């Protein structure tokens, strides 16, 4: 059984069915009726007067809460949603690796050019029993010959 306060509140908020409301209103004195009318007016003013302010810096709340979580639960496993694309850093690393691989392969596979051939700085493995390597500057204006395991170059040996 509801007490008077609960029934009055239900009546004021329109939460009674017709029969309950008629019975309650029949037992209500004039002053209570008048107070109910006054409250309905005050309620309208209250709702108008106490308008909520928009939340300032809403995204800041997210970042603060998540930072607190990470701080307070450092061991918390953080699962990430499945991604449709590989992260950029993975793609960048793969790109660097492929470039290095291509450079290495081109050095091994590309045909050797003769010294002095047009082009940039070049190195050529010479056909010599001394294992010599020549470095040629662009346009053939300068050449460095690097000879391994040889104290001197015999006179009958020369660059072809």
């Amino acid at each position: 059984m509801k007490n008077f306060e609960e029934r009055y509140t239900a009546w004021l908020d329109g939460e009674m069915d017709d029969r309950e409301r008629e019975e309650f209103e029949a037992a209500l004195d004039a002053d209570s009726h008048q107070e109910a009318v006054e409250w309905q007016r005050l309620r309208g003013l209250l709702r108008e007067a106490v308008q909520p302010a928009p939340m300032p810096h809403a995204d800041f709340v997210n970042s603060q809460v998540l930072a607190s979580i990470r701080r307070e639960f450092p061991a918390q496993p953080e699962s990430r949603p499945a991604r449709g694309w590989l992260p950029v850093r993975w793609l960048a690393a793969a790109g660097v690796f492929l470039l290095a691989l291509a450079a290495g392969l081109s050095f091994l596979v590309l045909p050797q050019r003769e010294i002095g051939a047009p082009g940039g700085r070049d190195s050529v493995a010479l056909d010599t029993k001394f294992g010599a390597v020549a470095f040629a500057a662009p346009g053939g204006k300068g050449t460095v010959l690097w000879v391994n395991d040889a104290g001197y170059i015999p006179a009958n040996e020369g660059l072809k």
Partner: protein
Amino acid sequence: MGSDERAEEAELVERSRRGDTHAFDALITTHRERVYMIAQHILRNNEEALDVTQETFLRAWKNLARFDGAATLGSWLSRIATNASIDLVRRRNAHPQTEFDSALMSIDAASRTTPSQPASPADSLDRAEIRERFQRALDTLSPDHRAVIVLKEIEDLSYQEIADSVGCSIGTVMSRLFYARKKLQNELRDLHEEL
């Protein structure tokens, strides 16, 4: 909230329970405004309301395992926010604020007034006065009574939702509403007679 949205939210809750902060981020975005408004109405202070909003979601994260889904996530969060706000009001009352802080609160409350239509200076003054009177009247209520008034009259929640939010029976909610309204009416009687 439709059934699809409820299912989506349930999935986000489940993922959050497993430690997925991205899922929890989405839940914060969905509910932050409402949580903030409840805290703001009870506390009437923007900075404190922001603090309580953050605290609410942090508590929610810590206690997600206890959320059984009997109430909606929104009601559960409202309950946490309401309790956190009431606790803060009680602590504040135990250590009254300085005059400077009170002045700031008054300015802050007035700054929220953005009339949807142009108002004459006289109208603006009246609105500001009325708002101030209501704010002062709300301040005279106990935290528990202020919470039910805010949740009922401003947030427009049902008795059941308020009971879930505050953590008491529907009968207690109705009883508190009765006395809170009486108190407000007495505080604002002269205002009502003027209008």
